[in-house]
């Protein structure tokens, strides 16, 4: 399996409003040397209460995905076993193949790791990561007298 390890940074506004912060950090591995089909592309969307990660990996089954969290890293991997019939087929052009890949993201601290859900529909894997509810009391207002 070919490994392409490179970090990429996703800038986002942190809780202080306008200071840039790196919240997701990615480490990726792609399979398939013959054609440069790359990794399944991902979009990340943030709402007030959660992060949503959408991975466009068409042609797979729900059971092909292996999603794990270890040391604050969320890893989505897939290694589809090739059917013997498929091995004989010859591609004259191949622009996508997501049967073997691995993508990891460093989770932001604000994500509640016990509260991540996913579903796979029409070739898109959607993960919803709920943010932790702030445990501290609301900001204390200091009155200048």
């Amino acid at each position, binding site marked *: 399996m070919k490994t392409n390890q490179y970090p990429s940074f*996703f800038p*986002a506004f942190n809780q202080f409003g306008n200071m840039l912060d790196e*919240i*997701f950090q990615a480490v990726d591995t792609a399979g398939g040397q013959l054609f*440069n089909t790359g990794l399944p*592309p*991902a*979009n*990340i*969307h*943030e709402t007030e209460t959660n*992060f949503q990660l*959408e991975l*466009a*990996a*068409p*042609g*797979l*089954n729900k059971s092909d995905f292996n999603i794990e969290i270890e040391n604050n890293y969320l890893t989505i991997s897939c290694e589809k076993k090739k059917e013997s019939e498929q091995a004989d*087929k*010859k*591609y*004259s*052009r*191949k*622009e*996508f*193949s997501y049967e073997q890949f691995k993508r990891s993201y460093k989770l932001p601290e604000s994500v509640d790791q016990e509260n991540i859900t996913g579903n*796979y529909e*029409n*070739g*898109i894997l959607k993960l919803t990561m709920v943010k932790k509810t702030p445990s501290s009391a609301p900001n204390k207002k200091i009155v200048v007298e």
Partner: protein
Amino acid sequence: MYPMHTRCSHRSCGPHQGKRFDHQSQSLRLKINIQETEDKYELEMAVPGLTKEEVSVDFANQILTVKTKPNSTESKTWLHQEFRQGPASRSIQFLEEVEEGAVSAKFADGVLHIVVPKKQKQSKKIEIL
């Protein structure tokens, strides 16, 4: 050698160039896998996130055209974006004669599978009198 080519008026867009856009229609370009067997071509187009109703397949004059038109107009602001969902298309011209009437398409898990049978070559036997 490629038995077919993707139609594009731009000289720079040869079969080896992986352009994101279809220059003819200025829409996003669909990704395609092509397999060829002795009697047919099997095509796979990546259409993640779409339903059957949002995809159209058209075949005329040896040219297969697949167009997608997502219904949802929901515009999200992305923290990070690697793919885009908008109207997309791809046209494939077959250089070898195919059975246009027998083209079939199937939709599953964000992949459109299209089978294009080749026209059977009829060999004419010449009898020696």
